[in-house]
C-alpha cells in the first residue's frame, strides 16, 4: 500500500561528527551542572541559556536559508540534533515550537518582513513562540474554535482565548488561529486566519494551568481587544485552517513522539547491565527493536516531508505508535527493578520513573489524541 511506504534513510557519515560534537557539548553542560537530564524535556526542560548556546552553535533553524540566520543544512542533520537533545533529556522547551513549527510556517507563508524580523531571532535561540490552536471546550474538535479578529484601521482587534498553550509564560509570540469572518456552520473550516500575536501586547493575559504534578508548563491565554498590526497576518487571510493543519505533519512524526522517556530506558539499561539481569535485558531488547522501527519510520517521514510528499497519514501513525511506546517504558521499567518512583529521589532511575509516569498521560493526548489519529489513519487507508 503506497500510503504506508516509507523510504530507507541512510544517515551520511558527516552526521557522525555532528553527533560527537553534540554529545561532547552536552557532556560538558551536564558535568558543569548547567543542565540536568529530564524525561519529557521538550515540554518541561527550560533554559534560556541553553537555548542561546544552541543558537550560537547553529543548532536552531538549521535547515533555513543563511540569510535568515539558518544553516542551510539538511533535514537529516536537523533530525540528528533533535534526537540527540531528546535522548540526553536536555532543556530544549524554550525554542522548541519556534524551531519546529513557526520557522517552517513563516518560511512557507510569511512576508519578507516577517522572515527578516523573526527567523534570525529564533535561530539565535532568543525568540520563542507558543502555539495558539486549542480552545476551552473545543477539545479535539479544533474546528469549533471561537477566537475572532475584527478588521480595524491598520490591523485587527483580537478577542478570545487559547488553552493548553505550552510555554506561553516564556514565549514572546504566539501564532493564533482565529476567525476573521464569522463561523459558517456549514463550513466550519472557512474564514480562519493565523495572526502573530505579541504576548507582551496590551490585552494579553496569561494564566498558568498547573499540571497534576504541580508543575507549570501549560497556560490559558486570554486576548481582550488585542491590536494585531496588518503586518502580522501569516499567509493568506481565510486560509488559516489549511496552513495550521499543514503544520501538523511536522509535529506528529518527529523524534519527540518516540524519545520522551528515553532517559529512563537508558538508565534502566544501565541498571540491568550492572546486575547482569538477562531476563530484564530481554525486555529492553524488545523495546530496542520497537524503537529502531519507530525511528526508521520517523526518519523516513522526515525525508518525505523534505521532498514535499504528503505524509499526514503515516505521520499520524508514527505519533500514535511512538507515544504508546513512550508510555510503555515506565510501565515495563517498574516491573524490572526495585524502585520507589519519586520526583525528589536522588536515584536517577526513581526520578526518571516518576517523571515518566506522571507525564505519560499527556503523550497520547498532546498534538492529536490517539482517538483522532486513528480516525485519520483509518480513513486514509480506506480511501486507498
Amino acid at each position: 500500500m503506497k500510503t504506508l511506504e516509507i523510504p530507507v534513510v541512510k544517515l551520511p557519515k558527516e552526521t557522525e561528527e555532528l553527533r560527537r560534537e553534540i554529545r561532547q557539548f552536552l557532556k560538558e553542560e551536564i558535568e558543569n551542572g548547567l543542565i540536568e537530564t529530564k524525561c519529557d524535556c521538550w515540554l518541561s526542560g527550560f533554559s534560556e541559556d541553553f537555548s542561546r548556546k544552541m543558537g550560537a552553535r547553529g543548532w536552531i533553524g538549521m535547515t533555513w536559508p543563511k540569510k535568515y540566520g539558518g544553516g542551510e543544512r539538511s533535514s537529516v542533520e536537523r533530525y540528528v540534533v533533535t534526537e540527540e537533545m531528546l535522548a540526553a533529556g536536555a532543556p530544549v522547551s524554550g525554542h522548541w515550537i519556534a524551531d519546529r513549527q513557526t520557522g517552517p510556517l513563516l518560511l512557507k507563508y510569511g512576508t519578507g518582513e516577517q522572515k527578516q524580523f523573526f527567523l534570525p531571532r529564533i535561530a539565535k535561540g532568543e525568540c520563542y513562540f507558543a502555539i495558539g490552536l486549542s480552545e476551552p471546550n473545543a477539545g479535539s474538535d479544533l474546528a469549533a474554535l471561537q477566537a475572532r479578529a475584527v478588521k480595524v484601521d491598520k490591523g485587527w482587534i483580537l478577542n478570545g482565548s487559547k488553552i493548553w498553550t505550552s510555554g506561553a509564560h516564556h514565549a514572546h509570540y504566539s501564532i493564533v488561529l482565529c476567525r476573521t469572518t464569522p463561523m459558517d456552520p456549514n463550513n466550519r473550516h472557512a474564514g480562519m486566519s493565523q495572526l502573530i500575536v505579541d504576548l507582551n501586547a496590551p490585552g494579553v493575559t496569561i494564566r498558568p494551568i498547573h499540571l497534576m504534578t504541580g508543575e507549570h508548563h501549560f497556560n490559558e491565554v486570554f486576548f481582550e481587544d488585542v491590536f494585531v498590526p496588518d503586518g502580522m497576518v501569516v499567509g493568506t487571510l481565510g486560509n488559516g485552517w489549511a496552513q495550521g493543519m499543514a503544520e501538523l505533519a511536522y509535529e506528529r512524526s518527529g523524534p519527540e513522539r518516540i524519545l520522551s522517556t528515553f532517559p529512563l530506558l537508558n538508565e534502566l539499561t544501565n541498571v540491568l547491565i550492572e546486575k547482569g539481569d538477562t531476563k530484564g535485558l530481554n525486555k529492553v531488547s524488545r523495546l530496542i527493536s520497537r524503537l529502531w522501527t519507530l525511528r526508521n519510520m520517523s526518519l523516513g517521514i522526515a525525508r518525505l516531508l523534505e521532498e514535499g510528499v504528503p505524509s499526514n497519514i503515516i505521520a499520524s501513525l508514527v505519533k500514535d505508535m511512538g507515544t504508546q511506546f513512550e508510555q510503555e517504558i515506565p510501565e515495563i521499567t517498574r516491573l524490572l527493578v526495585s524502585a520507589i518512583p519519586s520526583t525528589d529521589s536522588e536515584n536517577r532511575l526513581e526520578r526518571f520513573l516518576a517523571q515518566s509516569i506522571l507525564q505519560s498521560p499527556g503523550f497520547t493526548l498532546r498534538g492529536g489524541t490517539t482517538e483522532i489519529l486513528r480516525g485519520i489513519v483509518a480513513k486514509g487507508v480506506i480511501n486507498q
Partner: protein
Amino acid sequence: MSEMKEMILESAAKIFEKYSTKEVVNDAEKGQWAAELWENLEAYGMLGVGVPEELGGSGGDLDDALSILQMAGKYSAPIPLAETFIANWLLSDLGESIIEGIVTIPGQNSSEPFQLQKSGQGWIINGKAKYVPWARNAEKLLVPGESIDGTVLLVLPLEKAEIKPGKNMAGEARDEVIFDQVYIEECKTVSVDYSALTKKLYYAGALTRSVLMAGAIERVLDVTINHTNERSQFGRPIHRFQAIQHHLAALAGETAGAGIAAKYAVDAFGTNPFSKELAYAKIRINEAAGKVNTIAHQVLAAIGFTYEHTLHHSTRRLWSWREEFGTESDWEQVITEELLKLEKNELWSVITGVVNHAKKVGIQ
C-alpha cells in the same frame, strides 16, 4: 450486608464526604494535616472498628474495617488509616490493647529492627525507618525492635525522633524516621518472632493497599463516566463515541475485577493472614490500577491532567500505592516459589483449592 455494617458505612461516608474534600486533599499535599477528618473518624469510633471492645476497639469485624478503608481510598483520604488498622490488628492479635492517637508503621518492608538498650528507667533507641506514612503527624510508630531479650513489637513515641519529610507520587507524606541515641522513658514492647512480624506487616500492608486501590478505582470510574456524560465534542456527548464506549467498558471491567479481588482478599485474610489470595489480589489490582489510570486520563484528556481537576487525587494515589507493599513482580515471585513445589498437573488444584485424592499440595 448487616444492619450494623450499613450503619457504620453510612456514617463513614458522611465523614469522608464532609472532611475529605478536594480542598482538604490538596492542602494535605501542601503539608496540612487533615485534622478534622481524623478527629471525626476517631470521635465516631471508626478507627477502632474490627477490634473487640475489651481491647479498646469499637467492635465490628475485619470486613467492616476494610469497607471503611475502601471508602477512604475512594475519597483519597490523606490520613494513615491503613497504618492505624494494621497497628490495631497486630496488637489485638497479640492480645494487646490498641493505641490511642495517630499511629503509623513503616511503609516498606525495608527497615532493620530498631535497637533498644535499657538505660536507667527508660530506653536508648537507635534505628531508622524509611517511607513512613505521615510520620510527621503521627504520635506513635509501630516497628520491629530488638533488645538483648530478643525481638519485639515496639511502639515508639515520635516526639523526639528526627523526621525527614518525603512524599510519594501522590504527594502523600512518606517520611524518614531516625532515632539516633534517643532516650525514651516509656515504650511498649511485646515479644514477637521477627520474621513473622515483618511478614505480617508486609501482607497486611498489601491487603490495605489492595483495598484502598479498589476504592480509588471506583472513584476513577465514577469521575470518568460523569465526564463522558457532561462533555460534548463534535456536537454530541462523548459517551456516544464508540472509542469512548470501549474505554468505558474496559474501565468497568478493571473496576469489577479489582472490586472482586479486594473482596476475596479481605475474606481470605480473615482466616489466613498469609493467604496466597492476598498475592493474587495485589497483583490483579496493581494491574488494574495501571490500566485504569491510562484509560481515565485518555478519556478526560487535557482537563483531567490538571491540578484543578480531582482525577489526579485518585490516579496519583493508584500509581503510588501499586508500588507500596509489593509490585506485581514481587508478588509473582511469592507465588512462583509455591508453584515450584507443585507436582505435575496440580495447577488446577491450586486454582480450585481442592487437591486430588485428598493429598496436600504445596501451595496454601
